[in-house]
């Protein structure tokens, strides 16, 4: 035992030596904005991670090389491989939270709801804003309790509400929802259960019948669930599955004769990877899209010209250009670049640190004119973030699969944020109480 311990010590010393002996190549300079990227190019989620991060990197590269940086401040980024595992994302955060080679970090893109949860307190203690568009902790919308968490664009509650609002639109008004049956088929995981409270509240408000049907992970076999759907005869199905459970759900629904046009997929059940495996059964399937698919937006034209055709793209397979996951990466990158613009307007044209980053995100405002200017019109919704509202948008478009590509079938559908706000505030107040946090007063916060 004693000998073994000594050997462990020697081994540890060796590893430490190897680590410190590494050549420290300068990748950033103090006058640059450092952006750590917690990528996942290997592991079970690589197929979504590769185009996602390619979108982000392509846009950052475009800003650097075509626009000359953000007001002249170049962006330096570095990847760390995480395989989308929470502990590796936390490691990446710790590795880069103090910046690199003097270049500061203004925010950290968590890209994962579990990681957003895990980093919640660390981010607040280190004063690093955690950015997780269309994910993250729903109640962190309340920035008075969560100053450093930004579940931008559309929270999980918002996603439920947009789904219901779109159904109301199709039915011809909220009064038509009364007595209707809306079934939620969900992946039985924290992600899948997240919207239950919101839908329950909306069911009370509009008088529709709320049916919840769980699908156990991974969801390769769903006959039981869809037999139940056929028995209950719901008017609409809100599909909140994820990964392999989405195409299986679409195929099984077809097998049990449930019309695919009556299924509304959630944000994370709405990419090409979710419908192509379902084949012809997916034709007519609709899904919420805070980041729609398609390569016909203005920004795609610019990227194709400046990045893709010049061989500078991070995409190995150009057929992914304009796919949903690629566009998510683009939208995320555009949001953070716009936030840095907002921050520089106050703090001067220099790289920002985490505290300044929080100010920047809380004063992020992207209106329709600006969206046109940066080429994101139709791809990104107008955003206005504030201290009290860390979501900023709360809308999604609906896209429909035509058998080959996603086609947008609606304009931005707004979530009913006023109805949901009390739920969010109750949860954030409970969190504040549990952690003994005194909420900021957003009226006086600058």
């Amino acid at each position, binding site marked *: 035992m004693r000998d073994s311990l000594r050997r462990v010590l020697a081994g*540890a010393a060796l*590893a430490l030596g190897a680590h410190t002996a590494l050549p420290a190549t300068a990748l950033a300079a103090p006058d640059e904005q450092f952006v750590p990227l917690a990528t996942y190019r290997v592991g079970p989620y690589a197929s979504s991670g590769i185009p996602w991060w390619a979108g982000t990197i392509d846009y950052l590269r475009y800003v650097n090389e075509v626009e000359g940086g953000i007001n002249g401040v170049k962006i330096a980024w570095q*990847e760390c491989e995480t395989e989308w595992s929470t502990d590796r994302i936390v490691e990446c955060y710790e590795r880069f939270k103090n910046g690199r080679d003097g270049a500061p970090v203004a925010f950290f893109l968590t890209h994962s709801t579990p990681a957003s949860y895990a980093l919640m*307190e660390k981010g607040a*203690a280190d004063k690093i804003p955690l950015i997780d568009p269309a994910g993250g*902790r729903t109640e962190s919308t309340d920035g008075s309790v969560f100053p450093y968490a930004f579940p931008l664009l559309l929270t999980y509650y918002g996603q439920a509400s947009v789904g219901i609002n779109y159904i109301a639109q199709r039915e011809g008004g909220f009064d038509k929802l009364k007595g209707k049956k809306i079934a939620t088929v969900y992946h039985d995981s924290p*992600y899948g259960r997240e919207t239950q409270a919101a839908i329950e509240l909306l069911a009370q408000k509009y008088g529709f019948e709320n049916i919840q049907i769980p699908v156990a992970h991974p969801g390769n076999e769903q006959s039981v669930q869809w037999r139940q759907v056929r028995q209950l005869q719901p008017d609409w199905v809100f599909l909140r599955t994820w990964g392999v459970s989405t195409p299986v759900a679409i195929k099984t629904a077809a097998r049990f004769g449930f019309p695919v046009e009556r299924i509304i997929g959630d944000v994370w059940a709405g990419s090409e990877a979710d419908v192509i495996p379902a084949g012809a059964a997916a034709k007519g399937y609709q899904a919420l899209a805070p980041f729609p698919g398609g390569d016909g937006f203005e920004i795609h034209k610019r990227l194709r010209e400046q990045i893709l055709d010049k061989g500078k793209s*991070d995409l190995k397979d150009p057929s992914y250009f304009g796919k949903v996951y690629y566009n998510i990466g683009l939208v995320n990158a555009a949001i953070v670049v716009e936030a840095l613009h907002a921050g520089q307007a106050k703090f001067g044209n220099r790289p920002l640190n985490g505290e300044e980053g929080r100010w920047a995100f809380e004063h992020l405002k992207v209106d329709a004119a600006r969206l046109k200017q940066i080429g994101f019109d139709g791809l990104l919704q107008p955003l206005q973030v504030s201290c009290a509202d860390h979501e900023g948008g709360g809308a999604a478009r609906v896209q429909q699969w035509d058998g080959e590509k996603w086609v947008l079938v609606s304009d931005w559908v707004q979530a009913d944020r006023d109805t949901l706000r009390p739920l969010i505030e109750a949860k954030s107040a409970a969190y504040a109480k*549990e952690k003994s946090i005194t909420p900021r007063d957003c009226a006086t916060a600058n």
Partner: protein
Amino acid sequence: MTTTHLPASHDGAPLELQERRAPWPLAILLAVAFVLVPWLGDDYWLNAILIPFLVLSLAGLGLNLLTGYTGQTSVGAAGFMAVGAFASYGLLLRVPGLPLPLALAGGGAIAAAVGLVFGIPSNRIKGFYLMVTTLAAQFFLEWVFTKFPWFYNHASSGTISAPRLELFGLDLHAPAGRYLLVLGCVTLLTWVAVNLVRSQIGRNWMAIRDMDTAAAVIGIPVDGYKRLAFAVSSFYLGVAGALWAFAYLGTASAGSFDINRSFQILFIIIIGGMGSIAGNFVGAAFISLLPLLLNQIGQGLLGGNVDAGQLQNLQKIIFGVLIIWFLVKEPEGLIRLLANLGERLKAWPLRF
């Protein structure tokens, strides 16, 4: 493990089975770990390297007591970690004023009880068949902690978070505090484990591992000791799970303790060395830290010159090749490899 000396030259001296030396290397290691590291270590080293390494070592230790010492293969390790995490959380939440050490021990005790229940099939079945029942335990426990909101206090996303980390009025939220908490637990439990495996219980376990029929013949109550191994192992795993949730990530959901975590812990003991205490630490370092080291080396040496996707795949390949190479070189694990290396170095350079 320990070399046994029968000193022949001391005529008339009492028979000393084990040579007693002052454990200087161990004392120095502990002094460094308890004093120097929290004083010098920065956030990155404490938060992202040392805390997960220690917690995984503890989990490996727990599984090693069951698999390495008693010979009962289990792939449900993470399930018992989940029990420990959710039980400690529940205790802290529902028993006001409960001190942290008691909550951790309580979480471990509840995990031990659950382990005892899932150990019952070991009376009748062994080997691969037993492994399948532990697989069932893994999936069942994961399901329980997703299905019933009571376990996570009806939080919207099924996630639990560390309520309060304080010990005798000291706030342990800073990285150094959490590191010392983990280190204290690991040191204490390792010391218990070392003594446990040297005691009669440990020797009975090893007898069962080597041949359970023979163990039964010489009068060891095999079933009872197998269940005891399940309980003790689950206690260790439960404490490790609670530390993983509270001291490392600060949050956990059933997804943090999925089958992949079980495999990770199983790999730790296979690569570190079955039936060895120190092997868990070496194995945990290999499994959890080597990928980070490779990642940093890759970024440092090749970053920017080689396509990022290829670089990540290359690291995976190197990691896999290293595992295969080490296991071919020494099937008994890294700790055995290091022991052999140490023996050689003792005779170096005059080998003959």
